[in-house]
């Protein structure tokens, strides 16, 4: 059964969630950490069969990470951004690999670049970085320029080589 975007917004509002209408085919939902799995299972049951991506945003001033689960429906033609805020000092969230298998790689990547632990995920080994010993590189408190200057002897504007 095809649902329109307005019907989806109504359904989610009835479940007590804060919904924002962003674009003709895109909405965002704010979920809390405890409710996340329930919410994603519900979305999957109403036709949202495709998890496109998981990404993280570092809100360093607020001491929080925001995880965004991008979910798309081929029947409803609606893209839902599910936003979850978690504590930056204790970045843990339950895994969703059991729900969508492709989440394995997205969770590995987010773990590698932000240090967020997906509880229950059996393999959080690095995908891209080799022999990385510093803090995860996409956190806002990681100074990539200073790192490059120290390790690779980088010179601003190309130096005078």
């Amino acid at each position, binding site marked *: 059964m095809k649902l329109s975007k307005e019907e989806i917004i109504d359904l989610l509002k009835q479940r007590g969630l804060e919904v924002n209408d962003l674009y003709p085919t895109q909405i965002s939902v704010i979920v809390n950490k405890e409710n996340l799995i329930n919410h994603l299972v519900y979305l999957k049951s109403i036709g949202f069969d495709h998890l496109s991506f998981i990404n993280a945003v570092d809100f360093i001033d607020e001491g929080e990470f925001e995880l965004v689960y991008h979910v798309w429906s081929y029947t409803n033609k609606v893209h839902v951004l599910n936003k979850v805020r978690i504590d930056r000092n204790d970045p843990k969230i339950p895994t969703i690999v059991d729900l969508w298998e492709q989440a394995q790689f997205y969770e590995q990547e987010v773990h590698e670049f932000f240090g967020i632990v997906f509880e229950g995920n059996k393999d959080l080994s690095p995908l891209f970085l080799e022999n990385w*010993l510093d*803090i995860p*590189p996409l956190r806002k408190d990681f*100074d990539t320029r200073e790192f*490059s200057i*120290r*390790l690779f002897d980088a*010179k601003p504007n190309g130096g005078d080589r």
Partner: protein
Amino acid sequence: MTSRWDVERFGIGPMATPRQADVLLVTGYVSLKTLKRIIRTYEQMPEPKWVLAFGSCTVNGGIYWDSYNTITNLAEYIPVDITVSGCMPRPEAVMDALQTLMKMIQSGEAGAYKKYKENYEYYKANQDRVLRKTYPILGEKLIQNEEAATSIE
């Protein structure tokens, strides 16, 4: 390097493996993972061999100079005979560089692979410094890092 430019008229052609090649073209920015493979490829090539570094990124990092995963100067890790600057260089620039390299080989100027053997400790130390880090570059073990960096130099 395709039929439009027809480099074979200058006696230049791609080879199937590094073991059959004379010149290694390093095109574009070099990440740490790529660097490891470039060194491996370079050391597999039989002598005499030459390296052509292509684009600004291999000379000083180009627009990726402050990236945490991109090296800034390829010549610190393997010996480079000739560089082509630009981002991106035109195919004509590559053909010109290869012809210049031929002239340099004729006149005996191009012999960086000999430099690699003579100064192997220097290159190896630079390679190990970035590929086999044993301590965080930023962070609480900072002082140890600076000591280690000076001892390598």
